[in-house]
């Protein structure tokens, strides 16, 4: 009834190479392997292999620390897609992590499915629940959405205490941490195994998210974020895009929750308090909103800074109760300082440094 739709096949034959972006000279891998999936797969395999060998040189505890970062990377990545790409806020991603964690726990207890399948199912369950919540979220804006999601973070953990026989009540459910398969050898610690699982899951999630962000769907998300009116004029359904993004974002948080269950080998309400949701948001801002690498920095700060602050305070021979509180204060002050000094987060600082080094700082510092 109107526009002639673009005929994919006919157009494809007319692809002209010379019109590719002027900036195309900057990265050669993109040219070498033009199909994203192959390019990303290659990068992913390289990353996993490198990590696999690196992890062998780390102590069990270092590996464990690394594995702790993973769950938060995924949850923050989910938040980053939601807030950074789509402009919706959530102070309730801790609750979505909880949903993923309990899904994983119940599946592990009641089925004999392999770990990978369980993680996938936990992700899908959270995605579905996130889609339903997204219907509510799409009607709300700004602080109203923030408040609703905060109430979600408050309410969800109590479901576990209410339905004790299923969800384990206040003390929650026990998870058997995955034990490394025999072929990896006797020296392969469970901590190393957890860290490797973490990295594999993160890499897969990053590939999917990167594809999504670089696809039409991702662009629609950003269009809705920047200008709902203009997006509607371009034919984008704002509501559908927002619901979809909320579902995807929830799925990532759910996957993170599943990993957290494995890493903490336990799922209980105490691990999913409102504080967790707020920390995730802080981690996102500290890492840098809207960038994928920002999720890594944010999660690393969440895990390492409190531990580092504790180690620091332990050096001064003081009452450990006071030391614990001083460590907490250091974290709080650092949070304020980073946000005030670097509104773009750590990734923003890195991009600026990179810009300074390559002399092209003006152009790209605001990307994302």
């Amino acid at each position, binding site marked *: 009834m109107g526009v002639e739709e673009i005929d994919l096949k006919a157009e494809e034959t007319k692809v002209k190479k010379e019109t590719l972006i002027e900036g195309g000279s900057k990265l050669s891998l993109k040219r070498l392997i033009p199909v994203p999936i192959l390019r990303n797969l290659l990068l992913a395999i390289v990353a996993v292999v490198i990590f696999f060998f690196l992890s062998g040189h780390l102590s069990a505890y270092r590996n464990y620390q690394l594995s702790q970062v993973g769950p938060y990377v995924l949850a923050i990545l989910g938040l980053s897609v939601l807030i950074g790409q789509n402009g919706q806020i959530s102070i309730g991603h801790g609750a979505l992590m909880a949903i993923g964690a309990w899904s994983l726990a119940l599946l592990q207890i009641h089925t004999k499915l392999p770990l990978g399948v369980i993680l996938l199912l936990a992700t899908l369950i959270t995605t579905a629940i996130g889609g339903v919540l997204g219907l509510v979220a799409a009607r709300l804006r700004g602080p109203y959405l923030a408040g609703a999601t905060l109430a979600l973070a408050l309410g969800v953990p109590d479901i576990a205490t209410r339905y004790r026989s299923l969800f384990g009540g206040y003390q929650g459910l*026990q998870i058997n*941490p995955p034990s490394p398969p025999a072929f990896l050898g006797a020296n392969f610690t469970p*901590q190393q195994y957890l860290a490797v699982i973490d990295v594999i899951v993160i890499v897969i999630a990053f590939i999917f998210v990167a594809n999504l962000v670089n696809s039409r769907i991702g662009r629609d998300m950003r269009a809705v974020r920047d200008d709902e009116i203009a997006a509607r004029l371009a034919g984008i359904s704002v509501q559908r895009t927002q619901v979809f993004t909320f579902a995807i974002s929830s799925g990532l948080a759910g996957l993170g929750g599943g990993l957290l269950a494995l890493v*903490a080998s*336990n799922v209980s309400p105490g691990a999913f308090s409102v504080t967790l949701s707020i920390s995730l948001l802080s981690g996102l801002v500290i890492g840098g909103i809207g960038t994928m690498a920002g999720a890594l920095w944010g999660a690393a700060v969440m895990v390492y800074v409190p*531990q580092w602050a504790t180690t620091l305070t332990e050096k001064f021979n003081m009452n*450990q109760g006071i030391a614990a509180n001083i460590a907490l204060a250091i974290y709080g002050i650092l949070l304020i300082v980073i946000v005030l000094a670097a509104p773009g987060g750590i990734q923003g600082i890195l991009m600026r440094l990179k810009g300074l080094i390559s002399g092209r700082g003006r152009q790209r510092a605001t990307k994302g």
Partner: protein
Amino acid sequence: MGNKRSHFSKRFRVTVAAASLSLIAAACGSSSSSSSSGSSSSGGTTANTASAPGITATSILLGSHQPLTGPAAPGYSEIAPAAQAYFDYLNAHGGVYGRSITLKYEDDGYNPANTTQVVQKLVLQDNVFGIVGGLGTPTHQAVVNFLNTNKVPDLFVASGCDCWNQPTVHPYTYGFQPDYIIEGKVLGTYIASKYAGMKIGVLYQNDDFGGGGLTGLKQILTGGQIVSAQPYDPTTLTNGLGTQVAALQAAGAQVVVLLTIPAATALALLAMASTGFQPTLLSSSVSADPYTLGGLVSNFSKGKVGASILTGMQTLAYLPAPTDLTDPWTALFKTIHDKYDASQPFDGNTIFGMSMAYYTALAIKAAGQNPTRQSLINAMNTQAGSFTGPGLTPLGYSSTSHLGFLGAEVMQIGASGSLTSTSPIYVTNVNGPVTTHASVEAQVPANLG
């Protein structure tokens, strides 16, 4: 120590001497290689070696996870400093086999995800010999598998969950305080003997603590004697307990059993005082520490309610009362507290922490001059059942049971916060019958070295 001793009563001095003797006997029995003379700090025919992770010739490093910050910190944050204070005292008096004990306790904020992290750090990074007094059910559950897989001794978990008593599944984990179900059974037995036929109401926390206690109560009080059982959620305590108390009152409860944390006990007392509901009150050992509660309820109403609201309330106890300075252990702990832990209050949590430290020292000593993780577990399984100290009731440790205190006695809170016994000591296990027992509280030893 010598100049200190002059402060103590004559009776106390006698006690100390006797205790030293009994300890020497125990030590000789446990280790043929040891001929420690009790007071000498470097005794033993062989040299001290770094016999296990966390152990050097001169030191022992233990670990623990505690809520030092966050909503669960109030009260519980005192326990580990108190335990460390006892170790400081012990170290100043020769330590164990000349080794000083350090307790490295890390903050987990009562968040199980953090517990896993700090315990992994303590075990893998700091190389502690074992974990003692890890606090909380959900928190400790997150690490119990890890500790047992790695064969790390996991002594005296500070939680009354029956889940720690699984010698076949968790051979390295041992409980400490009476199991919540045992407490419930003891309370039930006491009620059956003293308040037969009266209507019983229960206010319980909706977790393993309150739920376990209720289970125990119901095992004894069959029939319709329990007229109402009201749960509360610890995360919504800011809304008070008025609704639950109103329901208990409406049900006509004459005796109310409180299976509550101290803050909730105080809130319940407040709600009762405000509506003039005055049932006979009984509480679990967790719920009623006269010091803590006295401080909290003293200002309910200017002079009208005050600490008197506590008077007459009966609570379970398996350790001496912090208010009872005539008890030699309380007196000793108070002295230690004043010297090493003065910045913290002296209350039930202090007694708990120091007692736990005392039994820890006993266990390590029993594990031999150069203990290993396995020798510690062996000592727990073979000797710990007969350990005595500040505890009032026998301990349940054996190769087939990892229960700690097997019972409790009922104490009544007096006008000035004093506690008087109103029952025999009840002893039981999770499934067996409840019997009475004589107090096993030991005399205070001179030192452990």
